[in-house]
């Protein structure tokens, strides 16, 4: 199965789509010198051909709508179809961002109520809904922390990041001009508190932490760590990638975190869209509130809302308008449907499923760190190395057997790592089928490793040569273009 590029299906003689005529006398002329010289090489296809093209592409995709997507730290849970219906309502989708506030009271009310719900889940005082993604949220939080320290006359230049952290953490810190200082993980897979103590100094602006961490383990010493960082004058930033483990169980704000980002596309079921759009709201404790991006949404009196731009200490906007509003509608719809009791049960089920799967996988692969885990766990394919099999081969074997693969080769501190996150929306039967597939792969690794290294064999393409692709990158089609 393969599908040509749309440009390869293009037929130059095809009539363009029927569109309105100007209906006014065409008197206007572009000034000399500003007109385009060469027509862009866009394809010419009829609507039936376009629809078939994209249907065929869709058929080459794996998605959560089809089966289990065990990507660790990505929280691939079911995306309720009701969310889509809500976001498509004309009363939301049809709003211009520069309409008068009096005409968008429902939108502002939704944002205000969503902010309150997220405050409750995360244990913080205020939330900005502006950041477009998790990494954007990280950066926004660090900018606020930076502004906070500067406002106190302190120039703090370092941010501490654990060696197990998501790559976005150090990248976001660097983008804010901070020097990244790495803190070690101990043998139990948690931050080495002694190493953290050694790295703290008056230069440290913040500690960035994911809890549960990327091994799926709760940082038991979090209260001690928070006290240490605060005593050194630093702030604690919570990477919310793993918040799905904690809703209604405990809260980052209560642990001592000062800024918390949340991924609405993970914990709050907005779809991942093949890699976005998501949304990465950031919650903060009171002393960071003055630095929130503007505008904020304020309630004047019961049910009258306004945008507040008059925030002199704000770090300013972090994107245009008010955030990925359509994603906010979806997340709010989910929270309404679930309620406080439903969100709590969701996190409990996520933890239960991960521990169940962990226990079953233990019999097949090495699981280097002692449990219980929270919502995910990390296994290692290291021991299959004696058959010449790597984590990558196990991943491809899962594709061969109708599953997507876990996150592989992350976190970096576990060799041949496979990070598995089942979420609360996969049934026990599905998890059992996944274990059966993994057992079959381990068997094949021992009996016929050559075969496993050839997999997948039934998908549109086999293993692609990524090294060659990066050496001589082809990043676009090349069309003739035609003179305008």
């Amino acid at each position, binding site marked *: 199965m393969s*599908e040509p590029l*749309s440009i390869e299906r293009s037929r130059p003689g095809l009539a363009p789509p029927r569109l309105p005529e100007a209906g006014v006398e065409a008197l206007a002329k572009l000034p000399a010198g500003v007109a385009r010289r060469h027509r862009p090489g866009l394809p010419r*296809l009829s609507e039936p051909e376009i629809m078939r093209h994209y249907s065929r592409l869709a058929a080459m995709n794996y998605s959560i709508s089809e089966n289990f997507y065990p990507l660790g730290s990505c929280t691939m849970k079911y995306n309720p179809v009701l969310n889509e219906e*809500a976001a498509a309502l004309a009363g939301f989708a049809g709003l211009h961002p520069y309409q008068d506030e009096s005409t968008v009271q429902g939108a502002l009310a939704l944002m205000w109520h969503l902010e309150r719900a997220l405050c409750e889940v995360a244990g913080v005082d205020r939330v900005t809904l502006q950041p477009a993604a998790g990494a954007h949220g990280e950066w926004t939080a660090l900018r606020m922390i930076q502004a906070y320290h500067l406002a106190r006359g302190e120039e703090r230049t370092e941010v501490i990041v654990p060696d197990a952290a998501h790559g976005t953490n150090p990248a976001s810190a660097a983008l804010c001009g901070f020097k990244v200082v790495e803190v070690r993980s101990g043998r139990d897979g948690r931050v080495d508190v002694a190493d953290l103590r050694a790295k703290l100094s008056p230069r440290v602006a913040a500690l960035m932490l994911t809890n549960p961490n990327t091994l799926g383990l709760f940082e038991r010493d979090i209260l001690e760590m928070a006290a240490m960082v605060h005593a050194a004058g630093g702030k604690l930033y919570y990477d919310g990638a793993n918040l799905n483990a904690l809703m209604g169980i405990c809260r980052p704000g209560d642990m001592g975190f000062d800024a918390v980002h949340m991924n609405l596309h993970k914990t709050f079921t907005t779809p991942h869209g093949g890699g976005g759009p998501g949304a990465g709201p950031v919650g903060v404790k009171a002393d960071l509130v003055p630095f929130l991006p503007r505008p904020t949404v304020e309630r004047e009196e019961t049910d009258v809302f306004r945008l507040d731009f008059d925030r002199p200490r704000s770090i300013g906007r972090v994107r245009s*308008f008010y955030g990925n509003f*359509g994603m906010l509608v979806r997340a709010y719809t989910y929270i309404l449907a679930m309620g406080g009791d439903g*969100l709590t049960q969701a996190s409990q089920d996520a933890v*239960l499923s991960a521990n169940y799967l962990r226990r079953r996988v233990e019999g097949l692969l090495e699981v280097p760190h002692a449990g219980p885990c929270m919502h995910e766990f990390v296994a290692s394919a290291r021991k299959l190395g004696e058959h010449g099999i790597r984590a990558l081969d196990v991943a491809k074997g899962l594709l061969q057997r109708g599953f997507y*693969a876990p996150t592989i080769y992350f976190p970096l501190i576990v060799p041949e790592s496979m990070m598995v996150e089942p979420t609360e929306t996969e049934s026990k039967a599905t998890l059992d089928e996944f274990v059966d597939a993994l057992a079959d792969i381990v068997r094949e690794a021992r009996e016929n490793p050559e075969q496993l290294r050839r997999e997948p064999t039934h998908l549109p393409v086999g293993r692609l040569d990524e090294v060659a692709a990066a050496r001589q990158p082809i990043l676009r089609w090349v069309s003739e273009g035609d003179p305008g």
Partner: protein
Amino acid sequence: MPYLVHSPDDRRQMLEAIGVGSMDELLVDIPGRLRLAHLALPAGLSELETMTQVGGLASRNRVYDDRLSFRGGGVYRRFIPAAVAAVTSKPEFYTAYTPYQPEASQGTLQAIFEFQSLIAELTAMDVANASLYDGATAVAEAAMMAVVQTGRHRVVVADYLHPEYLEVLRGYAEGRGFEVALGVDRLGEDSAALIFQQPNFLGLLEDPSGLTQSAHGAGALAIACVDPISLALLSAPGEYGADIAVGEGQQLGLAASYGGPHVGFIACRRDLTRRLPGRLIGQAHDGQGRRGYVLTLTAREQHIRREKATSNICTNHSLCALAASVYLTYMGPEGLRQVADVSFQRAHSIAARMSALPGVEAVFPERAFLNEFPVRVKNVEQLLSRLDAAGILGGLPAARWYPELDGVVIFCCTEVNDSAALDHLIAAMAQ
């Protein structure tokens, strides 16, 4: 509870298999004083009740008829072919994730490769990435590319860049440690880039060739922030020698949606490819010689390079990019030109009719525009509320950002504003 799949019996069986007696035994690592009694949120609702509540909020908003909307400022009403939603609502696309496993993600990968190609064609640049969050962050990312490329720490911004893009750029500059200077006359030997918008925020056409030459004369990069539909008519960044082209893709098939989600794009000269932020999709082959697509040049990215990455971006706005691809594929070169030209002609017709009204005058009569233009009126508030009463979303008051433009309203006109709508607008203004 909605969306949860375990029965009480499943839960019991799973606890048993794990070898614990209760959920609490799985949560032993959490210090007792952190455990929450309950979330202070309302109880969950049925689907019917949920939709009643959400629908109630939607109905508290006023939705203007597309035909009677004349407000732009970065978000525009355009005709959206039905094919766009039909494709983006396919769960195979919207419920997939970043294509880490290429063999099982060829649909998303090829769609993004096509998006990169379409943007590169439209901007006449060598390379485009898999998309960014929005136009504002695309400007900021381009500025950071220029700072790294030139080793200089000042970015110069020409007049009337979208004020929100400017504000976002300032924030990134503050964090990353470079300066933002306003006005082309600030261009000098210390400038990393000149950023200009074509057409600018007021709708007026700039001289992109001249600005690009000025930038290059100072050894700075030229960064063009462009309206993608305008490129069917206007000279493309690659044609006038810009180094980086960025912009907002909302007009390419995306709803206004109170400002998002939309999609930013970024394209550049070939030799800047490895400085691009975010995802890039490249062509590859498998062992049997079959063509496929993969995430490529990942050595730029945060999951490999961590603090040395070109950017902290780890996703794109894939689904919005897909919408833009379907839109551009539907339109083709002639369709896109038709849309741009109809908007251009109608805007000039309505601008001329407005200027003939007493109390309305063009602000920069000597300047050319495309389909958005500023006019000066006697009383902005009175005019807009009169239009509002006639069901019209009038133009955007400029004084909110530019005090010197008091009394100025920026009107936009596209193919959705038909002749009857134009007549209605003029009649309401003439009252």
